[in-house]
């Protein structure tokens, strides 16, 4: 078994067990989970280095050849996503640790650390799994951990929100299972590469039914309109550390699954028109929702929904350039969205809530906070020179290069959405950050400044700054990143590399 | 057809018959307690007969030993269940008093109640 692929699963799970044992020693627990994530980051970096040239790294778990055993696969896309996710997970973990050190949260750290590591393992497994059912297991690991996390500090509103979250996720899981049954019924295998080969002989109509069904299954988790409603009702209510990770990663895992299945399994089936309209609807409906929200977190959540549309749009285009753009967008969005939610968490820490109706003049209260908000807001609005700009340009270029009317419809929607995102996010800025600070906010700031937990607050701010900087770094290294994106997109469009790597050279290809 | 087969051929349908009759009783008895009697016990007899019949078909004694275990469980669990259900039925008043010839518990109950609360 290739160790590189095993580490992101095994180490976090071992770490989870360890932190569970260490639950009476908070410091040891914190150090342990940080170390675990560091190891994962390092491993992911090595993995990415191995795959950067388009190589597909394969590990047959247990040593059984592909269609029999479970295959773990890392192509450039998966490797990159593992790396970005683990970095984001690490930063958010440190943020949370800072918060715990300062005693600023009511989370239960004893439970938080092990579950968080399980989530890590689930996310990584979902990325590298090369087997449909194993993907389901990875999803379930991730989701179960997320259920546990979203109910941290279970106030009434949180319990309600997690009810919505859990039930929708469960519905998706059930449909996923149904989809697996149908795939197995049709092909008699559940290895992704094997399915890809065997679906070629299947009735096209049935194949397309499956393609659409899997779009629905993952679309629920990716919050694609019209299956997005749950997201703005659940994410904003969770603890910051958790909503940040959810917003950054969970939807992206689902988007990844959509990409993987639609490119590898159903590449022959043209559901691009469906994808396109879904993408357009997602962009527009999401951002219209963001405009009328009154809570910073809810605005961010609706914006999140809206921007999933961009990735689906790229997938709908389906060309190498478009998929490269999607990859850029994925990376950009993971980091930017996490930054935004962390900043929102800081706002909550400063003023006690995130409702726009009672926040004014945050620039005066904390200029640092203002700067930290401004950068991800720019990035999400697609203003240069941020990563959001780069990603959007890549998608627009791909659309123009394709030149079909559908592509132009998507581009038009993208432009409109970008403009509306700008309005939605800078509305927060003008309302919350400018103006005369409310007297109680000034007091709150004084209190925070004098409190004994400044160290924790500093660490939280520092980690938010690190995340924001990470966003800038993404923009800075956009050059190599887009090269990588093109390599990954080639692998995705081609599919042969993946299938051959998993099943061996003699495998039939679509 | 060996002797074992013949034994099986007698025992298994007999057991099934018992079970069936019990189930018919479950449907037909008008009172709750009556249904309980009908459901719980012919079933047990039927099960034991079937198990016995099966034992003759299995390859060896070792394989049949667990069947004894099943029967044993059944004999232990059925009374417990019946007793619990009976008690509940009575305490919930789901007893058709008209169909009772004698009810000595009803006479004893007030004092039983009083004792319980002590």
């Amino acid at each position, binding site marked *: 078994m290739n160790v590189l692929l095993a580490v992101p699963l095994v180490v976090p799970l071992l770490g*989870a067990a360890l932190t569970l044992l260490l639950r009476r020693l908070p410091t040891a627990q914190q150090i342990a989970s940080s170390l675990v994530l560091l190891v994962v980051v390092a491993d992911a970096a090595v993995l990415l280095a191995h795959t950067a040239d388009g190589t597909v790294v394969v590990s047959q778990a*247990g040593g059984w050849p592909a*269609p*029999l055993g*479970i295959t773990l696969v890392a192509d450039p896309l998966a490797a990159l996503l593992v790396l970005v996710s683990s970095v984001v997970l690490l930063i958010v973990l440190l943020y949370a640790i800072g918060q715990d050190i300062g005693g*600023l949260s009511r989370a239960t750290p004893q*439970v938080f650390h092990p579950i968080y590591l399980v989530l890590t393992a689930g996310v990584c497994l979902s990325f590298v799994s090369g087997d449909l059912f*194993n993907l389901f297991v990875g999803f379930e690991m991730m989701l179960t951990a997320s259920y*546990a996390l979203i*109910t941290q500090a*279970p*106030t009434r509103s949180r319990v309600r929100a997690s009810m*919505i979250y859990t039930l929708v996720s469960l519905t998706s899981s059930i449909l996923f299972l149904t989809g697996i049954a149908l795939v197995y019924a*049709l*092909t*008699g*295998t559940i290895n992704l590469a094997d399915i890809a080969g065997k679906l070629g002989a299947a*009735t096209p109509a*049935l194949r397309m*039914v*499956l393609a659409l*069904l899997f779009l*629905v299954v993952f679309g629920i988790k990716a919050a694609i309109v019209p*299956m997005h*409603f*749950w997201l*703005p*009702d659940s994410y904003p209510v969770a*603890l910051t550390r958790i909503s940040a990770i959810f917003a950054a990663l969970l939807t992206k895992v689902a988007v990844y699954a959509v990409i993987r299945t639609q490119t590898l399994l159903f590449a022959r089936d043209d559901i691009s028109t469906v994808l396109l309209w879904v993408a357009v609807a997602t962009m527009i*409906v999401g951002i*219209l*929702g*963001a*405009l009328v929200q009154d809570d910073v977190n809810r605005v961010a959540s609706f914006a999140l929904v809206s921007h999933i549309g961009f990735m689906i749009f790229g997938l709908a285009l389906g060309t190498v350039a478009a998929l*490269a753009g999607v990859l850029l967008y994925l990376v950009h969005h993971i980091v930017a969205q996490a930054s935004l939610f962390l900043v929102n968490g800081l706002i909550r*820490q400063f003023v*006690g*809530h995130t409702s726009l*109706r*009672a926040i004014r003049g945050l620039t005066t209260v904390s200029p640092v906070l203002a700067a930290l908000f401004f950068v991800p807001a*720019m990035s999400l*609005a697609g203003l*240069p020179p941020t990563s959001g*700009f*780069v990603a959007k*340009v890549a998608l627009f*270029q791909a659309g*123009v290069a394709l030149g079909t009317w559908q592509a132009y419809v998507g581009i038009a929607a993208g*432009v409109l959405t970008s403009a509306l995102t700008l*309005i939605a996010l800078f509305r927060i800025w*003008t309302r919350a950050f*400018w103006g005369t600070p409310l007297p*109680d906010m000034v007091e*709150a700031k004084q*209190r*925070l400044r004098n409190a004994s937990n400044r160290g924790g607050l500093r660490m939280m701010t520092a980690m938010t700054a690190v995340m924001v900087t990470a966003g800038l770094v993404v923009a800075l290294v*956009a*050059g190599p990143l*887009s090269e990588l994106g*093109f390599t990954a997109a080639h692998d995705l469009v081609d599919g042969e590399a993946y299938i051959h790597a998993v099943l061996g050279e003699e495998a039939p290809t679509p | 057809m060996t002797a074992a087969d013949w034994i099986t051929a007698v025992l298994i349908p007999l057991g099934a018959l018992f079970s069936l009759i019990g189930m018919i009783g479950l449907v037909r008895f008008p009172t709750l307690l009556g249904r309980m009697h009908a459901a719980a016990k012919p079933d047990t007899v039927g099960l034991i007969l079937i198990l016995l019949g099966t034992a003759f078909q299995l390859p060896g004694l070792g394989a049949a030993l667990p069947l004894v275990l099943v029967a044993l469980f059944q004999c232990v669990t059925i009374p417990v269940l019946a007793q619990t259900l009976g008690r509940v039925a009575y305490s919930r008043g789901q007893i058709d008093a008209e169909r009772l010839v004698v009810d000595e518990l009803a006479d004893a109950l007030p004092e039983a109640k009083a004792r319980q609360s002590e």
Partner: protein
Amino acid sequence: MLLPYLIVSHAVVAVLVPWLVRAIGARAFLVASLPLAASAVWALTQSSDLLAGNEVTASVAWIPALGITLDFRLDALALTMVLLVSGVGTVIFCYGAAYFPARERALGRLVASMAVFAGAMLGVVTTDNLFALYVFWELTSVSSFLLIAHNDRKEHARRSAIQALIVTAGFGLLMLIGFVLLGHIGGTYRISALLAAPPVDSPWLPVALVLVLAGAFAKSAQAPLHFWLPAAMVAPTPVSAYLHAAAMVKGGVYLVARLAPGFADVDPWRALVLTAGLATMVIGGWRALRQDDLKLLLAYGTVSQLGFLTLLAGTGTHVAALATEGVLLAHGLFKSTLFLVVGIIDHKAGTRSISGLSGLWRRTPVLALASLAAAASMAGLPPLLGFVAKEAALAAYLPGHLGSLPRSAATLVLIGVVVASILTFAYSARFLWGAFADKETVAERRFPAPSAAFLAAPVVLSAAGLLLGVLPFLVDPIAQRYADAYTGASYHLELWHGLTPALGVSTLIVAAGVVMFIQRDRVARAQKALPRWPEAEAVYNLAIHGIFTVGLRVTRRAQSGSLPVYLGIILATMLALPGVRLLMAIIGQEVDYPQPSEGLRLWDNPLELVVALILIVTAVATVREHRRFPALILISAMGFGIAGLFVLHGAPDLALTVVLVETLATIILVFVLRRLPAVFPTRPDGWGKRLTALLCAAAGTFVAVSLWLMTHARTDAPVSRGFAERAEEAGGQNLVNMILADFRALDTFGEIVVLVTAAIAVASLVLLNRRDRVVEAPDADLDTTEEEAAPPGAPAAGAATASSTTQEASAAGSGSADTAPPDQESR
């Protein structure tokens, strides 16, 4: 090439300057002006090289794969702009050091934004890559946004800022698409390469140009997108002088001027540019005439001049190009001078209203003189640069220099230019009169003499205008170099061309302007009498309001907050996408159905009937059951049914697991159930009962039919046939166990992890957080103290009013606020 470093140095300054402001106050402006001064000096040193024909280029690779590289290229047009941006910028920065008091609020942000802006502007005018241009372009928009709302405590400032941002950045997005199209059509994103070999035969080219022009027009405040510029005058004067007179608004003009050599002859270009330019000129001039606020007067004047510039830049003839260069420089110099003058007046007199100023010329003759020179330049009087430039502009539309311009269009434009120039003369005079003249009706105000440092800036700029007017040959070579892109008769920027038609037209303009100024009361009355046009800003407001209203409507409809509805929509989507596809396939006979010979049969085994009946009956009965306990028992029975089915299908292990799990689930259900009410509430669930039933039946049928058809259409034998031989060599007997423990051990491992995680989750929900437990009392709500109450860390009143869950917050009341930890996240 030094330029990238110069641009970066601006960014560095921007990062450092907030700390510097804390130490030395407004004098930080002087430090911030250093990179600008360096740029100016550098540009001057390059000019001789440039005039010799050596263009300076540099390139920084950023994202070559997407064609986004930071190419820089200094040519004549860029040089003009660099000189303008850095030269005027340096002066204005120095002015800023004197303008702002030391304790000015948010001064650090202001200086930093200005530095960023200056750097970005340098980038805009020197870059040779469309995307890099966009990058710098939007950076100027963003810094302008921050600068306009310098006084962010005023509602008006905030509104103006966001308005400017939405207009410029919003249309900037269109421009970006235009760039992408242009680059795609032309095969390169390098501007110089595009201009050298402009694409011609693509149907998308006009679209691309329209989009690019839209962005440029928004940036340069062309009608009808001009309204943001006057509103932006809420910014401090140095900002207005720099961004909204000298530099940023020139960005659009620059882009037009930059692209015109390649695309002026492509179809909608001229029509658009000329129409927009003319309209803007006239509207701006007309509006300027009726302003009372000097700064607004200048703002509308700027709008008018920007129209003029766009017109010239977009015309695409040799002489027009020369005139463009001239007007660019002249306008940058005189308009910033005038703004600075207004700033000084505002600062010292406390007002900038014409109706509040009188006799200032006597108080500060130097200032009046500088203003006079600048205003004269604006009005187009010799011997100033404004005159030189305007002569060239008039010549461009007079016969003889038309180039590829159609004669009729030229005539039309000429008339427009003349009208606008008359207006310009009139408002220039009005400015001078309004700011400095004695007025009987107005009392003189106190006016402390401004310091020399304060005065220096306008004087320097105005003197530069005079100097270049007298010595036009300083400008001419550069202008010629830019105009070389067009063929045309030779023409030079000069004070005296002889008695040309242009001079005659100029004389006419001056005469008419004088009349108009003298008759200013009549003009004012006429303006009042005319019906007001619909304001472009009203349209903007309507549009924004419309967007928000649509947003609200859509969100109100869609985001119902009700889980059953959400899940229903998910099911409906499943029916609408794969479901409809399957239906189409069935109708279109795209799928095979199993035939009796292939196993189409009702059942395999009569016992299946029993089991299926158990499943169906219990399922339907569960749906119809409204009491919790019977429903639970039905579910349990269903579990046994499933187990029975598994036994029938040769899966004893599965049956075992089902029974175990089912029992455990039942036990847990019992424990939870006994807390809950005995009867399920049967409130209407938002969807009609029948509709729901129909939807669910359809969804269930869809799944089952898919399963049926797909098992029939299986393409290959299942891979699991391979397990048997492998299992033998591995020594196992029970294949299911082998798969679980060996072949797919990872799944089993994951399953255990899920189980443990769920257990921890359940434990932390039910066992931990005991203090959140509520006593089973009717008034339990009042006891949920720390739940939704205002956290102690936050002000109770503020959080309570702010809380979106107001009802609960108020219900929670004071609670145990004193015992809860300092948790800010309790909401």
